[in-house]
């Protein structure tokens, strides 16, 4: 692809130069419907989101807590598919330059076909992909397909990752690495483990890429605290819950309000 510097890198470089932390909301795409997600993403961008994670629903979301499990099920019942999500990406791309990262479980991507997916994702204007259940050892095909199509591949690091894992994961990641703050599933926590800053610091020593931190972050106060040591603050379940409670008509507006509260939390 005749693109210059990739969108994710461009975005994170700019924020880094300004001394700011990226705010990354996660959307469970297709809950309640794909049009609502589309509008909510635009509202979030207006409210100060820097990068968007688009959750691809899967029937068996093993790494997710109850909020995203239920949301994924609603999204599937509403007929959400990876094809439909890529169409939404293309529509968003016509309206915004915000980096878009697809986040999901491997099987729907495997069925789409890794090469076909990477090609279609790139042409729709998606910037990266993260499969929760695809560690580097299993990701050769996906990495190759993404590389040849200019799509960033983002991998997870966990509290259980030792130095050799951190290095191995860093080697095959581009864009950023995603540090999972807790041993557990997605979902709001009242507090994060106290050793997260130290673990993120260790990741920084071994990895040149920006480091995102997610899982368990739900409030502006938590986001502010995490922004002290992370390059990206990722918020998922709390936003998904807020949108669900708001209902279809109000979910985009509520997503915007939620993101703007987080933005103030991070910058404040």
């Amino acid at each position, binding site marked *: 692809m005749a693109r210059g510097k990739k969108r994710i890198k461009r975005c994170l470089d700019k924020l880094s130069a300004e001394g700011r932390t990226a705010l990354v909301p996660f959307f469970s795409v297709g809950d309640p419907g794909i049009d609502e997600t589309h509008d909510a993403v635009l509202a979030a961008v207006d409210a100060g989101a820097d990068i968007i994670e688009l959750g691809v629903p899967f*029937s068996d979301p*093993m790494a997710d807590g109850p909020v995203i499990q239920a949301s994924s099920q609603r999204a599937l019942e509403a007929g959400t598919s990876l*094809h439909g999500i890529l169409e939404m990406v293309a529509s968003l791309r016509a309206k915004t330059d915000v980096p878009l990262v697809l986040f999901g479980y491997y*099987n729907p991507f495997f069925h*789409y076909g890794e090469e076909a997916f990477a090609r279609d994702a790139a042409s729709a204007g998606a910037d990266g992909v993260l499969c929760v259940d695809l560690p580097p050892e299993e990701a050769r095909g996906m990495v190759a397909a993404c590389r040849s199509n200019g799509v960033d591949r983002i991998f997870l690091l966990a509290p*259980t990752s030792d130095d050799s894992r951190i290095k191995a994961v860093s080697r095959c990641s581009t864009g950023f690495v995603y540090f999972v703050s807790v*041993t*557990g599933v997605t979902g709001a926590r009242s507090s994060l483990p106290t050793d997260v800053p130290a673990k993120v610091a260790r990741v920084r020593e071994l990895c040149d890429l920006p480091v995102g931190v997610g899982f368990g972050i739900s409030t502006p106060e938590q986001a502010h605290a995490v922004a002290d040591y992370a390059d990206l603050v990722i918020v998922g379940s709390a936003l998904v819950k807020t949108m669900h409670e708001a209902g279809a008509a109000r979910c985009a507006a509520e997503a915007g309000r939620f993101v703007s509260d987080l933005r103030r939390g991070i910058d404040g």
Partner: protein
Amino acid sequence: MPALPDRHGRFGEYGGRYVSETLVPALEELEQAYASLRKDPAFKAELKGLYRDYANRETPLYFAERLSEHLGGARVYLKREDLCHTGAHKINNTLGQILLARKMGKKRIIAETGAGQHGVATATVAALMDVDAEIYMGSEDIERQKLNVFRMQLLGARVHPVESGSRTLKDAINECMRDWVTNIADTYYLVGSTMGPHPYPLIVRDFQSVIGKEARRQVLKAEGKLPDLLVACVGGGSNAMGLFYPFIKDESVAMTGVEAAGGGLDAGPHAASISRGSPGVLHGKKTYLLQDELGQVREAHSIAPGLDYPGVGPEHSWLHDKGRASYVAVTDSQALEALQLLSRLEGIIPALESAHAVAHALEVVPAMPRDAVVLVNLSGRGDKDMPAVAEYLGVEV
């Protein structure tokens, strides 16, 4: 054939380790612990003693004379895993893995269960070794298998009902994975079948291979030759893998895995992952799955809760692709008929799961020569299924 799985946990393209990063170090630790344990003479001796004195091994290889006469074809033998302590082959695996958990210093055991047989076998060995056991079970299966729920509780285990998804085995596994990733430091996940991420398919196959090792020795003694055909039911596939594996190099021995066709392969919901599924990734492994064209996993159905799973152990997928084993499916009603026939002819009430294997034998044995030998794995006994069978037959008990 090469020794599989390879060092990446693969059986050809199947298997592997498709898990979130948090679990990777735990699986590496498990792999190392198992690699050293499996060579340890003290471990082997302890397991052998438990198999003999606690699990009631070796189990008989029983010549089913009346059934053979009735069918008028091959000579049919039953490998009597139903006589194992706790009533099914599941104890072979749980005894092995509880020793592994103890060696790894884990004091909390979690397990999934479908029919409840693996849950009972896990609760049993947890009681024996004085560790806490928590069992995840779909709420629909809890309803179907109340007796096994009570047994688990009596043995001191906590049973967690799973309300998500189809509320059966698949969802119980999801909940186990969620628990494990949350409590990874002190918890051992005791997987109940030849599935999950590497090294579980290897570990479970190794512990279940005692079935095939004994059967091979027993049939050679009884018949002076190897069997012509092995038959076993396949859900996740552990009793089948345990029977098949020691015969894999015996090329004259045909092997048939029997999946659950539920209400019929065409009519509708079933659990025949190999017969009607396609390759995909679920619960840590690549294997045949029941799924839609977008890669969303479908709900399985079988009257036998132990077969009610939309995937299959990865080694079975490989044996299928290689043509080393063949896979067929029998319906709920065929299994029920087989259960009744075996009960009346031999005085043995098989589990609904095992009745699937018997049902396939009923189909193929009559056309086989009289001197042919067929070995059917009777993986469990039918007591747990009596309420469901009675309901199906319209009998009030």
